[in-house]
């Protein structure tokens, strides 16, 4: 474009453009948002790739995530150690995967991670119960919760082990027509 910005080098911006689904303008805007979250922590100048992470508690209070029942799990799935503190790269990654342009396969990978509460690479009944309770804020009776979870596993489980592996999940997502339009955050 025309304006000289000193936050990133040109190469950094090109690299971000290549590995995320954002344009230059959007990446600079994202950096502005990231900086807003913790102005004292996040430097304005990223040319020498500082190593700083914004804590979980600040990120989940962003307006885009505040009302999401899975906000903690979302941030944890994109952080390196699972602790929820995101560096700028992880921050951009998160919004890139959740943007409109990310393909279904990529979104399915991260959706699986988000719904896997006990991080055992399977969506077992407890994971489903936790998901359901987060969604409905525990307004369903325990019998209803159990019925729904049983039906869900019955619908999606292909190999009959009473829990959903990633293959089951991906197959089910490929037939869920709403997934692409709902698994999307606009920033």
């Amino acid at each position, binding site marked *: 474009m025309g304006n000289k910005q000193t936050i990133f080098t040109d190469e950094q911006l090109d690299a*971000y453009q290549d590995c995320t689904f954002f344009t230059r303008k959007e990446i600079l805007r994202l950096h502005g948002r990231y900086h807003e979250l913790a102005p004292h922590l996040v430097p304005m100048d990223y040319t020498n790739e500082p190593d700083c992470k914004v804590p979980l508690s600040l990120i989940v209070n962003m307006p885009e995530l505040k009302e999401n029942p899975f906000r903690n799990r979302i941030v944890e799935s994109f952080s390196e150690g699972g602790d929820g503190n995101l560096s700028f*790269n992880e921050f951009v990654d998160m919004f890139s995967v959740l943007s409109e342009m990310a393909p279904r396969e990529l979104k399915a990978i991260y959706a699986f991670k988000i719904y896997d509460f006990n991080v055992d690479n399977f969506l077992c009944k407890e994971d489903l119960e936790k998901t359901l309770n987060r969604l409905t804020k525990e307004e369903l009776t325990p019998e*209803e919760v159990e019925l729904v979870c049983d039906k869900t596993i019955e619908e999606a489980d292909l190999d009959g082990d009473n829990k959903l592996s990633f293959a089951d999940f991906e197959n089910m997502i490929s037939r869920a027509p709403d997934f692409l339009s*709902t698994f999307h955050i606009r920033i």
Partner: protein
Amino acid sequence: MFCNFFRAQRLEEASKLSSWKQWRQSTQRTLRRLRDEAQEWLSSLKLWRADIHQIEGMFGTGILSYFSFLRFLVMLNLIIFLLMFSFVMLPIIIMFTTNVILFNIWNPFMELYPSSARRGLVIFHEHITDLLSGGGFLEQTYLFYGFYQVNQIHFPNIKYNLALAYLMTTIAYLFLSLIWIVKRSALGFKRNLVQDEDRFQSFCNKIFAGWDFCITNENAASLKRSSLLYELRTDLEEERIKQKIADRTRKEKCRIYLIRFILNIFVIGVLAGCFYSIYVATIFSQEHVEYLMYEYLPSIVITLANFITPLLFSVIINFEDYSPAFEIRFTLMRCVFMRLTSIGVLLFSLWSQITHCKDETCICGYNHELYSCWETRVGQEMYKLTVFDFIIIVAVTIFVEFPRKLIVRHCDCGLAKWWGQQEFSIPQNVLEIVYGQTICWIGTFYCPMLPAICTIKYFFIFYIKKVSLLKNCRPATRPFRASSSNFFFLAVLLIGLALACLPVSVSVAQINCSQACGPFVGYNTSWEVLPTAVSELPTGVRSVIEALSSEAFAVSFFVVTCLAMFYVIALAGAHKKVINQLREQLVLVSLVK
């Protein structure tokens, strides 16, 4: 992480590449950037982008699809109007403005067609009456078919056959609408076909793809939660009812079928009653044209019928004991049928009047004494329907929805609580605009400027509905999913298009066109222009066209299409068998492990 690894790899590669490859990579990147920026600029030009974003954020994807459907219709009507304008109106405008061109009017009866424009001193309110009824001074404008008196125009170099252009443009806009709708619905249709086939994904869908991550508003979030809760409970209820239906005894089944039979007869009776009253109202209004109220009588009757029947249907369906999902769909189908067929009944009653003469057979094929220019009359009826539809939408919003909000908010009595706040009912709103679009498709042949009027009408309806949504409504407790709603809208629109093609083709091919006005003077029916024009073509092209329209070609084309269809169905069946086998294999493999 994803990004870090990729960046390190790229920087390493960049240092190894030769300068030529680096230059090529950097040009590719620049081009990609330019393309992204161009796309961004183009999408920012899209009409109402900001408004639709706002609605999506507050009300979710179901209502968003209604508004993007409205935008689609605005664009469609604009394109149809541009088509009509450039092929039908523009030549006549050029003809009138440049006097050098010779024109050929083949209309010996022109003097016999009395102008109904008012003469002498005209009182102002009569202009308003004319504007609302499409009569008077409006009859002699580009608005109606009767104005296009020209058969052919001789420009300096070419001969422009206006009659042929009029007919071809009609066919073209119907065809264009069909293709555009099919293209738009192709994706939704595929998904809906997969989804409907086995309802085996309903719970998974709701849990994993149910929450709309775009929601940022606290109210919207709690509403979404309650709608999800409602959906889950409905699904559980559906499971229970399925179990109950499977457990039904023979005696209960007979009783249910008897009840359903009686209620269906009742519904048919109600529909017949409505159609008969529309027929009577049309004949009455054709015979008495003194008051504006009488002219609008058919529109009023249709609107009343369309208001009462959905309420009736939703009460009846409770007694028929279907599963909840089927109940919704069946009621909707009945409402769609009612709305769109009422236009057909109106047209049928108009035509029965037009082709009915005092002594049994009409000489010209239509009643040339009463209806010297019957196409203009039909055009006026369509125009009145459109205007009345718009007036009703505005009036309901202002005089029903706003007071309702005020009453519910400030009054604490039991009645207000029972009535509740307005819900934005997507199916009824969609039916409203599909009804308007069907009128537009039928009416464009008789009233070439109707698409422009409809474009303006939908433009204003967007803002009216948006304001009403934001101020008065809360989102429906019965949620409407985005994917199936897109398919539903376009399916109803296709039904409307099919229903619109019918009257247009009947009037073009069967009913004799009026000999006192319009571009088809001298021909028996409007369709005759085409064979006449074809017979004037050079021999080679003519024989090709005649071969294409012969019975032999039609029959063989039909046979080939049927064969293709059977092949595709057989293929789908084979695929399904393979999928089932693979599923069984998966289970076996995991058991063996």
